[in-house]
């Protein structure tokens, strides 16, 4: 998949005669990918439990609508708007989760219903029009940049965290005589990651700095990767998706695990909704349309299995990067919308095909 991404980037760079890798476009791409990554993070957990959430695109839009109405029409401050928006997302997640986990309506059905209902609700809330402009403090979430110095500081922090995690895991493997890669390869890998981080920050700073959405994304990815890999709750998510019955027999509170995951998905969708509204500086009727499909595609490209129990958040982020790069590059090329859909569809199927082939080998 890394190779696919590099290939996609090279292709667009050549075809757009370099426009694709201008700092401005990369900054733009990074903001696009932030929102999708956050959705894909939640979607990964949902699909690992063996469920699906089709309602997140509409939910995002509706949350955006709520933000717009509260801020523009009722002049609420940014902080209360955000709090209410996230609470709404959590509440809807709770309702979805209750129907899925306790009433046992298939998640496909519940969230397909949500997809329709929330889109309808959005049009009702917005009265069918675009609401704008948002307050400066609200726009900050989607449009602002981190000052240059803070960006560098962040890169140092990231490098330290990354290296520490890698060294720790290597030491751990040495301690228990597990298989390790040769030291030279290991160091090379670290240097490569560190360089990538530095290059990223340099490019961002050459434009206007690291976008705030990227920061939000990094925090969310960090927290959720940690939860899924290191905590009891994370283990239980995999267990429930891997074998629901065995998880039940193992004494896991299976219903609540699924409920919590759907609630988290609701919260992440509302965060994505807030970010999108902030970036567009408007709450539109079509906001978030088809985003659920992009998020599912990113998750699947990232290696998460539809049968549940298998998947990882970093994989989904890579998937999100591929999907966003395609979107971004094809828009730059002024490709027809129909081509954009067709190509994204083909890439999704090819990715899974490749994955199946690779696993067989």
């Amino acid at each position: 998949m890394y190779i696919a991404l590099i290939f996609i980037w090279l292709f667009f760079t050549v075809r757009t005669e370099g426009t694709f890798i201008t700092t401005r476009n990369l900054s733009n791409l990074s903001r696009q990918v932030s929102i999708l990554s956050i959705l894909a993070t939640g979607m990964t957990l949902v699909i690992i439990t063996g469920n699906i959430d089709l309602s997140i695109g509409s939910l995002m839009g509706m949350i955006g609508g709520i933000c717009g109405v509260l801020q523009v029409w009722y002049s609420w401050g940014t902080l209360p708007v955000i709090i209410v928006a996230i609470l709404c997302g959590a509440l809807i997640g709770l309702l979805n989760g209750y129907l899925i986990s306790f009433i046992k309506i298939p998640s496909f059905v519940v969230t397909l219903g949500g997809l329709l209902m929330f889109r309808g609700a959005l049009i009702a809330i917005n009265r069918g029009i675009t609401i704008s402009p948002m307050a400066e403090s609200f726009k900050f979430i989607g449009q602002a940049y981190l000052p240059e110095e803070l960006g560098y500081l962040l890169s140092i922090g990231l490098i330290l965290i990354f290296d520490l995690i890698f060294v720790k895991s290597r030491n751990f493997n040495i301690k228990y005589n597990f298989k390790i890669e040769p030291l030279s390869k290991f160091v090379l890998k670290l240097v490569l990651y560190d360089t990538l981080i530095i290059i990223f920050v340099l490019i961002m700073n050459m434009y206007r700095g690291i976008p705030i959405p990227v920061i939000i994304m990094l925090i969310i990815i960090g927290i959720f990767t940690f939860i899924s890999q290191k905590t009891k709750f994370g283990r239980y998510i995999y267990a429930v998706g891997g074998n629901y019955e065995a998880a039940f027999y193992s004494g896991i509170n299976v219903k609540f695990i699924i409920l919590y995951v759907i609630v988290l998905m609701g919260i992440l969708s509302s965060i994505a909704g807030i970010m999108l509204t902030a970036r567009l500086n408007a709450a539109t009727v079509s906001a978030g349309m088809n985003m659920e499909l992009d998020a599912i595609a990113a998750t699947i490209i990232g290696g998460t299995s539809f049968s549940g129990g298998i998947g990882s958040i970093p994989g989904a982020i890579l998937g999100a990067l591929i999907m966003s790069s395609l979107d971004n590059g094809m828009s730059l090329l002024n490709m027809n919308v129909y081509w954009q859909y067709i190509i994204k569809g083909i890439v999704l199927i090819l990715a899974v095909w490749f994955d199946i082939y690779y696993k067989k080998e």
Partner: protein
Amino acid sequence: MDNIIEIKNLTKVFPGVVALDNVNINIKKGEIYSLCGENGAGKSTLIKILSGIYPKSTYNGYILLNGDKIEFKNNKDAETAGIVTIYQELSLVQELNIAENIFLNNEPSNKFGVIDQNKLFKKTQKLLDQVGVNNNLSEKIADLSSSKKQLIEIAKALSKNGKILILDEPTSALTDKETEILMSILKKLKKKGITCIYISHKLSEVLQISDRITVLRDGKLVGTKVSKETNFKELTKMMIGREINKVYQKEKHSILETVLKVKDFCVYNEKGKKIVKNVTFEAKKGEIVGFYGLIGAGRTELLSGIFGAYPNRISGDVYIRGKKVQIKNPRDALREGIFLLSEDKKKYGLFMDNTLQFNITISSLNKIIQNFVISKDKEIMYCNKMVNTLSIKTPLLSTYIKNLSGGNQQKVIFAKSLMVEPSIFFLDDPTIGIDVGAKREIYSLIKEIAKSGATVVLITSELNEIIGMSDRVITMYEGEIRGDEKIELTNRKSILNKIFGGD
């Protein structure tokens, strides 16, 4: 008799393992030929080669069928050639009826693909007569007993004009009585010139049914014996390379106070019918209580009911050390110190796509949590301890469960239970589908568990196992307890009588 199958210098290598090492076998036409060996001896690999699942290009050596070299590309090729395999896991579609199942993907139809119902039922009836099943053809598979399902599988194989039937553990889900029916059918088929290749862990069964027996060990052929000229002891010795004197080592252990008391326990099926009827029993500290009965007598439902895992209505009281407890789900049960090892380990016990350590620790993550984070150090420490005490054969702790053998998978579930440190173990057929060597280890493990002061409630379908293991045996018939006796005070005949509804 002519050789119908000749296997020459067959070698099959998996990454890191030689599954079959230069094996030469001749199988005669019309004989019942058994393959024996511990898990991992190479039986399954051999079958998979014969049935075309591992195509020609993946192994060395060759196989002659009626003197001709065979080169199967897939399972379908093998079936066309007349080699039909009946697998351990039944391949019937539960929601379809008998006739539909037998001719699945082989339906008699006209040129437009419309199924000829008349022909379908006529043909099915003929096959059912052959295997001695007298059920209505339109009955759903889901409503049939395990033995009937097994016979339907055989009928299905015959429908494909099978000349050679491969039966992989056909009796693992059958009671002794049902096994006998199966045996007599196989003997009938033999008279009709059908060759059977029979794989089973149950040696007594193998000795009884087969003409010749071949033993494999670690992928190598140990030897082939004529059944009449060999015995249980010799075969086990061949299989494990040493002699087993006593499979069950009876030990006196001290039985003290009552730990579990179940009173007037009832379990109802989804239609509201009572399938466990007012069951009352006790189990003491350090005691092994065996439950014996036919499949469907309600033993499994009783234990899963007490454990809080039964999906439908239950009633009755459960006391642990004199205190009444409310168990609504397995979480409550584990908290009260009850662990259930289910008879269907794939469905209720294991996470196949996860690692060994994931499976061992999943019920007791609290023990390896430090500051809300799973401590890998502690996890590995515990798992290593378990792997050593139970001698689980695995390359790594991070090996996926699906890559372990059946016996080792079962040991992983035992490891999981030991991690929980329950005071009451419910073991529902813990040795089902496991080879003699692993069985012996599991028997001594169960004894060990009881000796350490835990209470064991054991269900098994093998009478020898019940008699060899239990301190007390409780017999069940149609949801009721028919007998509850110390093992010294009863005998085989009396137990068998009770499970069939006698006095």
